[in-house]
């Protein structure tokens, strides 16, 4: 991390919301070393790992449950329907919801920050 050329990030003026005017230009190394960029990368992986953890818990939890407690998943929860069926479908639906959550987060929060940082790059 110390290998980056610019020693310290000069304080950066924030771009006014929606405005293009007072944009501070920085070099690639300065952007990479900036606290905003580091925070962005950190947030991206925090979200990813949180969602991945939820995926792991749901899927491997499901596998271990159907392997370990057959009596529990065999109990009827609706007419002719053992618990195993809705939780199997639930794992699939939940997995899709997790991807939807990630996309919603990235569209709302990640992309605007990416555009802002790209705008600051000196060309």
């Amino acid at each position, binding site marked *: 991390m110390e290998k980056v050329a610019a020693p310290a990030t000069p304080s950066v003026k924030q771009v006014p919301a929606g405005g293009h005017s007072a944009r501070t230009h920085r070099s690639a190394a300065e952007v990479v070393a900036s606290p905003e960029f580091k925070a962005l990368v950190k947030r991206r*992986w925090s979200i990813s790992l949180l*969602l991945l953890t939820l995926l792991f818990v749901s899927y491997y939890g499901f596998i271990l449950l159907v392997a370990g407690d057959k009596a529990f998943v065999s109990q009827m929860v609706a007419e002719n329907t053992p618990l195993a069926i809705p939780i199997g479908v639930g794992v699939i639906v939940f997995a899709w919801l997790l991807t939807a959550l990630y996309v919603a987060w990235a569209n709302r929060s990640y992309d605007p920050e990416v555009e802002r940082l790209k705008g600051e790059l000196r060309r």
Partner: protein
Amino acid sequence: MQSSLGSPTASSILFFFLIVALTLVVTYWAARRTKTSSEFYAAGRSVSAAQNGLALAGDYMSAASFLGISGMVALQGYDGMIYATGWLVGWPALMFLVAEPLRNLGKFTFADVVAFRLQQRPVRIAAAVGGILTVLFYTIAQMVGSGQLIKLMFGIPYEWAEIIVGSVMLAYVLFGGMLATTWVQIIKAVLLLFGVTILTVLVLSKFGWSPANLYGAVSAKYGKAALVPGGFVSSPLEAVSLGLALMFGLLGLPHILMRFYTVPDAKAARKSVLYATGLIGYFYVIIPIVGFGAAVLVGRDLVNKIAPGGNMAAPLLAELLGGQAFLGFISAVAFATILAVVAGLTLAGASAFSHDIYMSVIKRGKASEEAQLKVARIATIVFGVCAIGLGIAFKGQNVAFMVGLAFAIAASANFPALLMSIVWKKFSTQGAVWSILVGAVSSLGMIVLSPTVWVSIFKFEKAIFPMKNPAIWSMTLAFAVGIVVSLLTPEPRAQEMFEEEKLRTYLGVGAE
């Protein structure tokens, strides 16, 4: 019930020719737009997120998932559903871990990403080995399966089926490159989803539009055991290991990863995963209804008699509920499914040869556009001819384990190196090479020594390696070797580049 399966009927031939004609027209159109290597490998990065989502679904939903899972549910009940969930859960993991960095860092293959800041030649060779092994085993399984299926459905001799699949698929890839392959996969995904939806609706219409009535009929006929987990997950360690291979194998499948280079940017890559996950998830949620429907309406005895293992459950159900015309349609869809998957595999196999080995290792990145395109097409022909030859060579062999093998190698050889190259600053050339080779050799070795091959195929008394699914060990081993070797062989230049590459990884600055 009398079935016309196995003899070519007017409707099956009609739908078959319609699909082949449509896809060849698309290929002709695509061929005129395929003049550069970027167009050949990546469709000129012109594919939209929704199109790529459909194409990813078309690339992934193989005949094994359509015919295999519906058959498994028909014969074994709920266990088929457990299997289906495993095929889906890799998609969110693909999104969270690799989709966007992969798109930003690479050009045509996943090896681009692994080799990005490391020494090109050794890493490219190792990554090409992992990639080609994965694609090769997957292709053999697809080709052998397709020969058997086409023989069952159309009555065409096995060898001819191999040659037809191989030649039609070669026409797509050779002339139309990635653009034609993409559209073949889109057409196939739409037809398959449409066909399975119609089957599901027809089944539910027989049971008062209530899945509960269907489950009731299943348990009245086969007992409640058909609706609850059976022997499939008797060993939790085995089940988790299979789950790991299915989940992380997806993140190392070269033909899937390659699709992310066809979209304009990382944002489109991300959206395409959401579309693909939705489409594939929908498919796996409704396919058990088809399987249960076949169990009740067609009956397990007939399903098992026509094709042991149950592969013909869905086509038999289609004939019962929709007559010969619908059977013809479903058979043609199964055929299109095989074509689309094999075309994607061929493109991925050819790109590992031509882009990673020829262009980057032999020519050291310096070759003209014409030369690159020529080599890509030669590699396509070589791979296609190999696919046909191997398909014929493995006739009558039990190759079902090869899909599992492909996933195990993908999860153990390709995925650890890909992930470490994206997230770990200290990953080194030696670390990458040894991680890939150890992952490939250990997963291959453990499967050969496992009950699946050592006992079932080589007919030895007792397996040397006790588990059927080695991914939990081979993947861990590949990560461990990658980490230890990287720490022993520090590469200062690669570590410096890691900081610079972040701009491209996370902001997409300088991405192809």
